[in-house]
């Protein structure tokens, strides 16, 4: 009887602990969203989305909108994700084929995990050094390269896992019908792994679009919408940083943060809907 009581007690304790963890995580989300909305509400208007910043007289809050940062962020993160995905699918397929012994491929996986963990400012400084060495200046191009480097380990590891999860029985089924390795990879493995591959790309995009440190030096800052690859550009994270450090700019910074959150939310929801559609045929 006493034993039973102890076990009930243990079980209840763990239930409470798990529930508490859930509350901490969900609570933080609600608080962050709430804070951003409350602090940014007074500056949230359509001008934020349609105008570029204007020079305001000293003592007045910064004027105009943040269109340049929205365009800049998309211009940096979308191509970066595209390039990173192309490179990553190559690496992921290479890791899966029989070219490498398991020991080597696992070593590469470990290194990619280390790269995943490297703070993004390191990527930023690395690209800055190369940029200076080549005599270039802060621009969309260099920022894009920094983000690409930041995203490659993330996307590669996700794709790698997605391809690894394809059951061997499925491949055997395809092979036994007389299909080649290439046909199996393109027609069967790709279909089965695609939702995971897409999830990896969107995870990379989410990371890239929200990262400030890697593009702080590499993309620079500008109040205008960039017109070429070699123009410096603002992005949402650097814009938030700039606005927040300007006197009377805090509320605008929160409004910009709200827009960034909404973009990330849209990306997540779209990816959910897309993967659900693609999962229709997936073999469990």
């Amino acid at each position: 009887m006493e034993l039973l009581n102890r076990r009930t007690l243990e079980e209840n304790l763990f239930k409470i602990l798990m529930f508490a963890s859930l509350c901490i995580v969900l609570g933080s989300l609600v608080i962050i969203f709430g804070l951003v909305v409350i602090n940014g509400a007074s500056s949230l208007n359509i001008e934020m989305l349609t105008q570029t910043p204007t020079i305001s007289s000293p003592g007045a809050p910064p004027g105009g909108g943040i269109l340049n940062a929205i365009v800049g962020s998309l211009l940096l993160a979308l191509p970066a994700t595209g390039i990173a995905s192309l490179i990553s699918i190559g690496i992921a397929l290479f890791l899966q084929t029989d070219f490498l012994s398991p020991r080597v491929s696992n070593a590469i996986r470990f290194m990619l995990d280390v790269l995943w963990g490297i703070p993004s400012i390191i990527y930023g400084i690395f690209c800055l050094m190369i940029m200076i060495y080549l005599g270039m200046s802060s621009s969309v191009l260099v920022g894009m390269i920094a983000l690409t480097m930041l995203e490659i380990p993330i996307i590669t590891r996700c794709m790698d896992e997605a391809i690894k999860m394809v059951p061997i029985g499925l491949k055997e089924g395809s092979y036994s019908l007389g299909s080649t390795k290439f046909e199996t990879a393109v027609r069967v493995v790709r279909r089965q792994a695609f939702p995971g591959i897409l999830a990896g790309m969107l995870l990379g995009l989410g990371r890239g679009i929200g990262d400030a440190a890697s593009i702080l030096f590499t993309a620079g800052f500008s109040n205008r919408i960039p017109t070429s690859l070699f123009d410096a550009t603002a992005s949402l994270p650097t814009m938030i940083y700039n606005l927040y450090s300007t006197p009377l700019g805090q509320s605008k910074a929160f409004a910009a943060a709200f827009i960034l959150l909404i973009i990330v939310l849209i990306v997540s929801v779209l990816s959910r809907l897309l993967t659900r559609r693609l999962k229709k045929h997936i073999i469990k």
Partner: protein
Amino acid sequence: MEEYQIETKNLNVHYHKLKVLKDVNIRIPAKQLTAVIGPSGCGKTTLLKSINRLLDIHDDVKIAGQILVNGENILDQKTNEVPDIRKKMGLLSQKPYPLPMSIFENVAYGLRIHHQKNKEEISRIVEYCLKETGLWNEVKDRLHDPATRLSLGQQQRLCLARAIAVKPAVLLCDEPTSALDPISAQQIEKLLLKLKKDYTVVLVTHTLRQAKRVADYIIFLYFGMVIEQGPAAEFFANPKNPETKAYLSGEIS
């Protein structure tokens, strides 16, 4: 359809450092149902997968000896000829693995990779194969649904339909009923009995009763060695080897 003779000579298979098959010499008669029986882990599946060279895709496997198909050693053949070897041998695995596409496309897949372009011809063969496996009436109104919506038994029959669509000569079945409910299992058994008229069927099974019900020829494997092989009637009525007797009486399993 041409006769397909399968024979192995001193087949040895190592998996990592473990010897899975030891000097296996078997002969699989054409257009009969051959059952490979033996306790779990005795190398039945390995034997089956070496016949269509599916062992190639696993790491760390060493194969020595000969597997003669119509007198030709398939272990000698180059990698780019392997798909043709496999095309001749349909596979039915333990757990059905339909391809991640619709019911129709599952059967059409084999035709498409072998360059069948004619749409009417594809539809005709798909319908024929689904009728052969008794699935047609169950799926004819939802051919474009995902194959995963089918029950496990239906999925296994779909895999069978997919296999016969590429006109193999041999059907390799690796415990195809072990994951299924009794009624679906019975359907598969009946299908195999029907198909042995046109195909050479090799059935790996761990249930002795199933082997007794359906097999014409028996190969008994134990610890990677062939203990006894022969026509089913003789094998069950008059086992020669003490280990076979022990297995048949249930002393070893």
